[in-house]
């Protein structure tokens, strides 16, 4: 940005900065940026905990007992922890998908249907593949299918925005309805096993579960897709912060006009970002289809796409933050089941909402998006 603003450039150039002073200010600014990244989510978390205390008391239960039950049912035993990992895996993918959009200044609300489309395509490919192919050979095919499924759903709003300026929020929301209805129609009329809402089981290429390696995870749905999620986190970090395309994408997200002035083609960045975003969400469908049930079922990950928005916001659109936020929301979701005997499940929904609200009002990306929306509304 400084290159486009001659005054700032000159001031910076004229001021002599001794190396020692710059190192000190570097350290100070790094500390400030870490504080800025860590403190708001911490406040959000504590705020949610206090709201939770009050809610639990209003149900006539003891907060200490309920929270202990929540922790015991999630991190306290291998099965519960496995379930947290399983749920977090899907959330990492949808969180990364939304975060990539946010980095490009785009709000992708379509992760819900992109996830479903990815899982659906993987299941279809699984039905077509002959039985008995080794998992490692099939895996790339499945990843490609899921990425294509989610990517196509993501590309539609991307192209519409780049070509016609259609707002991606509206298009992705509407596409959710269309895509989910279409998938449900195909499943319930053509592909389902009678008396169920799911397709037949896929023949080959299912992923091993964690319990195959660590027997105490017996029964938990956690599976090797966790490794894919970790790889996706690293790959996205590399893409965003170490490649030219990633730099262009972030530049467009920060200030599209400046990026355009610097020679970035904003339209291609837009549709590329939304396509990749959709593809990442789509790969998340493998967690259920390859790792857990081995078929596509209507509504297999209801809410995981929308929760991905919360994960991306709380995780500050950074892969590490997203990993932590996914663990947090997965813990709340699984913990809700564990405490269901004492308090209604909706209490956990309220806690999630408090976290989201508290973080959303303090995250700079959101403020910038809101400002941008207001500006374009004024125009």
């Amino acid at each position, binding site marked *: 940005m400084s290159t486009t603003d001659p005054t700032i450039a000159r001031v910076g150039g004229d001021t002599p900065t001794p190396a020692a002073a710059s190192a000190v200010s570097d350290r100070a600014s790094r500390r400030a940026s870490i*504080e800025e990244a860590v403190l708001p989510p911490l406040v959000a978390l504590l705020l949610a905990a206090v709201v939770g205390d009050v809610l639990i008391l209003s149900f006539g239960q003891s907060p*200490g007992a309920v929270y202990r039950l929540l922790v015991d049912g999630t991190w306290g035993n291998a099965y519960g922890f496995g379930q947290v990992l399983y749920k977090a895996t899907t959330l990492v993918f949808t969180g990364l998908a939304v975060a990539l959009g946010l980095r490009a200044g785009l709000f992708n609300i379509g992760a819900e249907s992109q996830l479903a489309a990815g899982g659906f395509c993987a299941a279809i490919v699984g039905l077509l593949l002959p039985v008995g192919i080794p998992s490692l050979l099939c895996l790339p095919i499945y990843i490609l299918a899921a990425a294509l499924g989610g990517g196509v759903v993501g590309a539609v709003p991307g192209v519409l925005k780049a070509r016609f300026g259609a707002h991606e929020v509206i298009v992705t929301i509407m596409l959710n309805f269309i895509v989910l209805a279409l998938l449900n129609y195909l499943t319930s009329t053509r592909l389902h096993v009678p008396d169920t809402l799911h397709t037949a089981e896929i023949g080959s290429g299912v992923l091993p579960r964690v319990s195959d390696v660590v027997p105490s995870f017996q*029964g938990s749905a956690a599976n090797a897709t966790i490794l894919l999620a970790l790889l996706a986190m690293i790959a996205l970090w590399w893409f965003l912060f170490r490649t030219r395309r990633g730099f262009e994408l972030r530049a467009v997200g920060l200030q599209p006009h400046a990026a355009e002035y610097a020679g970035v083609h904003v339209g291609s960045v837009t549709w590329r970002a939304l396509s990749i975003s959709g593809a990442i969400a789509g790969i998340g469908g493998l967690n259920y289809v390859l790792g857990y049930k081995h078929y596509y079922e209507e*509504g297999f990950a209801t809410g995981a796409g929308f929760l991905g928005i919360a994960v991306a916001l709380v995780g500050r659109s950074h892969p590490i933050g997203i990993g932590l936020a996914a663990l947090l929301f997965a813990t709340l979701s699984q913990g809700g*089941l564990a405490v269901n*005997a004492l308090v209604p499940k909706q209490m956990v929904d309220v806690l999630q909402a408090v976290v989201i609200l508290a973080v959303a009002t303090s995250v700079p990306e959101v403020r910038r998006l809101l400002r941008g929306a207001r500006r374009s509304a004024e125009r």
Partner: protein
Amino acid sequence: MRKLLLLVAALLVAHVALLFIHPAGAAAPPAGHTIDVGVVFDLGGRGDKSFNDGAYLGAERAEKALGVQVRFIEPGEGSDRESGLRLLAAEGMDLVIGVGFIFTDDLTQLAREYPNTKFAGVDYSVATDPSGKVVPPPANLAALKFREEQGSYLVGALAALVGKSKKVGFVGGMDSPLIQKFEMGYRAGVKQVCPDCIVLSQYAGVTPEAFRNPGKGKEIALSQYQQGVNVIFHASGSTGLGVFEAARQTNKLAIGVDADQYSEAPGYVLSSMVKGVDNAVYDAIRKVKDGQFRGGIYQYGLAESGVGYVYDKNNERLIPPVVHARLEQLRQEIVAGRIVVPSTR
């Protein structure tokens, strides 16, 4: 930053302080109960005025009458179904109940993993092998199934006898084998008492959404009423609320489903085809308590009072005594096995 740090400290203190409050009457760990029962609801959860609420009523009655301890779990997403069942089974519950056909696979698997725990599935769909033979569920799993076609048969006869216009209506929710059972029974009942009657039948859709679309239900019902139908039977969840609305608007009659739906549109609900989920759940719990629980397929039909139609002081003025007598006669013939009601297309 200083301000945020202060806020963190303040919230932390508040939270820790609240953790030490123990309200009087907070749940102590259950002790001294003879039987522990766990119930996992379908995603729709409680408040559906249909089988989830039915299961809740049955379990609650068992809690009061039999002194058992019941725990309920409402899942949030697909993978929570198995998780909920597993949490309950791992806690050593005596009986774990899954409400809805969607629990079929999860129940079958868990019943194998926990052979010492008893399981029951409402609307459990029994698998058949490729040669068409029924695959029995595991020995510790009871499949609670209902003969919806028998109850539908009786309300079909009722609709034809009261409607008098040679045309009766049917509104289904999601076009699926389960709802087709209602339709087939209904059609057979209509033909029994009025061979030249026509049944106008429409479904609200092919996805689970079709059970939650009152607007569509009203639209279909209005068009059927306009074509000369006087009575419509709906098997469509809350989509049926639109059917009642249409009945009220056109001053015609509708028949409810699953529970007694008279209160949805008093005066316009001819009767309801009731499905005794509460009785089936209560029964399963009672058998566990008495040590008589056996796995297998349980069919609740007219003979077991598992299905039926409503005839009480609310709607007896809508149903002439002659018609009621005819329905009772048909009921006895079905119970005696002289009439076999079809359940598939």
